[in-house]
């Protein structure tokens, strides 16, 4: 009786102790919202700042002469012909080698593999490889492709550079392939099996064509990562000063990012502007590749 009384007596006072303090809390709310919008805006502002700087610095020296000239000690005569050709050659090697291997590995892991120690080992491996710094791949390329396999690759050549980048982007392609294969509905596979096709026939004739746009999208994104990679190519010892276009896989080479790196590192301002022009070319190629990937992705989504 007595305790009950005290509780009812205390209730109003407890309720009055609770101060919602709404004005303060809403102010904090507003500050927090402003901060998070501000952070996003800042990131985008920096992106715009970066792009604007490069356009302002580089547009004045960007002309056909720049694209059609070799590297030179005189900034007004220097161009990116050798670098652009080198990049195209290396990318050709990367695409030709990484596509079959990456897609094959992806097919194996997604369609064929049983859940055993080998599959698990490969899966752990791939997620670990994705976290290895690119310059470590460069060291691997230096030791394995440029030195041990020198009779095949010819040393610090296009083939060495290409194979090093292949290893670098392999995890990306495998993951993209698996995701594209996973998106193919099982009913397609079941229909193929019901008609008596072997697993490989089902994959080759039905699953792969359906998954191809997704695989190609991943492939393009992987290539666009490879095209901007500088560190591994420097690590395998690609040249910075080349005054000829490559003639074959065993030709020494320079690439667009390396040429840009070389120009940025020089003290003269004229070379910095050339570097900016090179960056514009590189970013334009990247933009085209990404536009292609987005186009493929949209077509893929429409058809399903």
């Amino acid at each position: 009786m007595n305790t009950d009384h005290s509780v009812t007596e205390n209730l109003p006072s407890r309720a009055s102790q609770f101060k919602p303090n709404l004005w303060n809390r809403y102010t904090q709310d507003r500050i927090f919202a402003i901060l998070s919008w501000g952070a996003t805006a800042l990131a985008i502002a920096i992106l715009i700042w970066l792009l604007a700087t490069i356009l302002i610095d580089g547009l004045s020296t960007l002309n056909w002469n720049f694209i059609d000239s070799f590297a030179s000690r005189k900034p007004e005569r220097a161009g990116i012909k050798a670098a652009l050709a080198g990049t195209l050659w290396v990318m050709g090697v990367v695409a030709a080698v990484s596509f079959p291997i990456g897609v094959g590995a992806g097919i194996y892991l997604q369609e064929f593999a049983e859940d055993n120690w080998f599959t698990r080992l490969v899966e752990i491996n791939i997620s670990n490889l994705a976290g290895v710094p690119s310059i470590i791949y460069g060291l691997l390329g230096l030791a394995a492709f440029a030195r041990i396999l020198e009779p095949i690759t010819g040393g610090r050549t296009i083939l060495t550079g290409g194979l090093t980048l292949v290893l670098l982007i392999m995890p990306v392609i495998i993951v993209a392939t698996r995701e594209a294969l996973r998106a193919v509905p099982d009913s397609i596979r079941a229909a193929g099996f019901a008609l008596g096709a072997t697993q490989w026939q089902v994959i080759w004739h039905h699953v792969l064509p359906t998954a191809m746009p997704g695989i190609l999208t991943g492939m393009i994104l992987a290539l666009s990562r490879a095209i901007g990679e500088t560190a591994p190519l420097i690590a395998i010892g690609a040249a910075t000063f080349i005054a000829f276009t490559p003639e074959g896989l065993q030709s020494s080479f320079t690439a667009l990012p390396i040429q840009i790196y070389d120009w940025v590192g020089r003290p003269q301002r004229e070379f910095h502007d050339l570097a900016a022009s090179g960056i514009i070319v590189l970013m334009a190629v990247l933009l085209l590749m990404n536009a292609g990937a987005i186009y493929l992705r949209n077509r893929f989504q429409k058809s399903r």
Partner: protein
Amino acid sequence: MTVQTPANAPRALWRPNRDRAKLTQNIVKVICGSFAAISILTTLGIVATLFFETLSFFGDVPFWQFLTDRKWTPLFASKEFGIFVLVSATVMISIISVLVALPLGLLAAVCLSEYATPQTRKFLKPMLEILAGVPTVVYGYFALLTVTPFLKGILGALPFIPEIKNFNALSAGLVLGIMITPMVASLSEDAIFSVPQRLRDGAYALGATKRETVTAVVLPAALSGIVSSLILAVSRAIGETMIVTLAAGANPTLGFNPFVPVMTMTAFIVQVTKGDAVHGSIAYQTLFAVGTTLFLMTLLLNIFSFWFVRRFREKYD
């Protein structure tokens, strides 16, 4: 008899060569499996090349000296091999980059997931993807030729701040932070977005404001994803090469002064490989000793990140 022929003809034409189909299937399976095995070969290749060259490095340089020397001069006549000179620069630049990427990335993730409307999100996410896709050599250009002069202009006007050199850890770290921000943002955003709506509704029902819901309910629930995104970003920052090579300089100095040129592990690798490192020389071996240190640091971080997610993930069903 002749009447039956048309009906029988297709059946006669259909001769499934099951043995051949199965043989093809097995051959393809072996080929694809060996392609998958290439990933294991890559790892083995990395470990083997790093290990053997590092082993011969420690045949010439005592391990103790590698840890305790206070200078890094492997290319000079009087050689000293204090790896901590390079490690300190790498760690300092990574810390600066995290100080940028943590608030920026996390707040951007909160903004995208909690504040932005679907339409704004659709516009903002590709912008962050562009930021993530910019080649690192471009960030290097930006750090050296835009951010450094900018910092000199701003910080040079303030008192008590020492002179900023043309190559410095600060601008490299800041730009590196910008580079890893999209990674923190998009991975954290995935984690925040996957927090179930009913947790937010519960907080609102108790009278919490939006900010209180985010900081007291949503962020703790997404903590494992956020922390692992941060660790992966740090691991990326440690292994980043072009920004630090271009903007931070090539001057091995021990200590944590962000205003002077320093040399990170990756910058050293670039410096040596840019010249002609002859196989078997001490410079060549040093390359792999530094590479091993770098590899172990990033590997430990990656493993820690995987472990952290598995250990602390909140499961909602």
